[in-house]
């Protein structure tokens, strides 16, 4: 139990710190690397919630796939422009005010609602349960997702086609 609390706080602090580094850093490439750290910390948070499969998907797809894509995008666009990408912010005060106000509102609302403090016991293997519902109750969204990925693939290759 104490190990779980320590793990939660370690991952939470890493996540928030890396998130702040993503939005406040000056170098775009460093921001992407800190985003990878934030995504891996999120996978750790999923592990404290007993969602091992989601954590694995998070690391493979998000931290692996998305970060590779974004780095690739930076490399391609830097070559196209021929100069280092500027990565400055604007309206920092107004944006910070809006974000802080929303955070205060959300945290206040969360603290005023009675919420569960203990997790219910696991009925069985969560991954097995997820697999069963994925192919019984959620078959249609699962198949639609395959269509969406195909459309995404076609759309991305259409947009990024070489100029003729």
């Amino acid at each position, binding site marked *: 139990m104490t190990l779980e609390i320590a793990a939660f706080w370690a991952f939470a602090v890493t996540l928030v710190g890396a*998130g702040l580094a993503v939005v406040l850093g000056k170098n775009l490439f460093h921001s992407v690397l800190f985003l990878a750290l934030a995504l891996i910390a999120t996978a750790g948070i999923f592990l404290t*919630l007993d969602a091992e499969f989601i954590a694995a998907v998070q690391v493979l797809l998000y931290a692996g796939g998305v970060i590779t894509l974004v780095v690739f995008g930076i490399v391609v666009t830097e070559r196209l422009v021929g100069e280092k990408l500027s990565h400055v912010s604007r309206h920092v005060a107004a944006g910070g005010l809006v974000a802080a106000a929303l955070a205060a509102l959300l945290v206040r609302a969360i603290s005023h609602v009675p919420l569960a403090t203990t997790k219910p016991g696991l009925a069985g293997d*969560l991954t097995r349960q997820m697999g069963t519902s994925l192919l019984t109750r959620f078959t249609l969204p699962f198949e639609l997702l395959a269509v969406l990925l195909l459309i995404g693939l076609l759309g991305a290759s259409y947009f990024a086609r070489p100029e003729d």
Partner: protein
Amino acid sequence: MGLQAYLTLAAVVFCIGLFGTVTRRNTIGILLGIELMLNAVNINLVAFSRFRGDDTGMVFTLFAICITVAEVALGLAIVILLFRTRRSASADHIDWLRG
């Protein structure tokens, strides 16, 4: 840890992502902020799913992660396309609607 701790963490991460999305000039920087916000929503979904003993939220998180990957691929394709036409990464320069 109670559900409240997870929801508070997700709210804070969401607001950090919101801050990045509204303040960044660079289009890829805006995409990174959106990633953080989607990530916070996934934490909420998994936390509610675990504390309610119902696996629907976790299945939904899987769908959300896959859709995010498609979104990033398309978003980066659009960013690369905008570079070709405008030679700029700044969102302030993307203010026209015709092709």
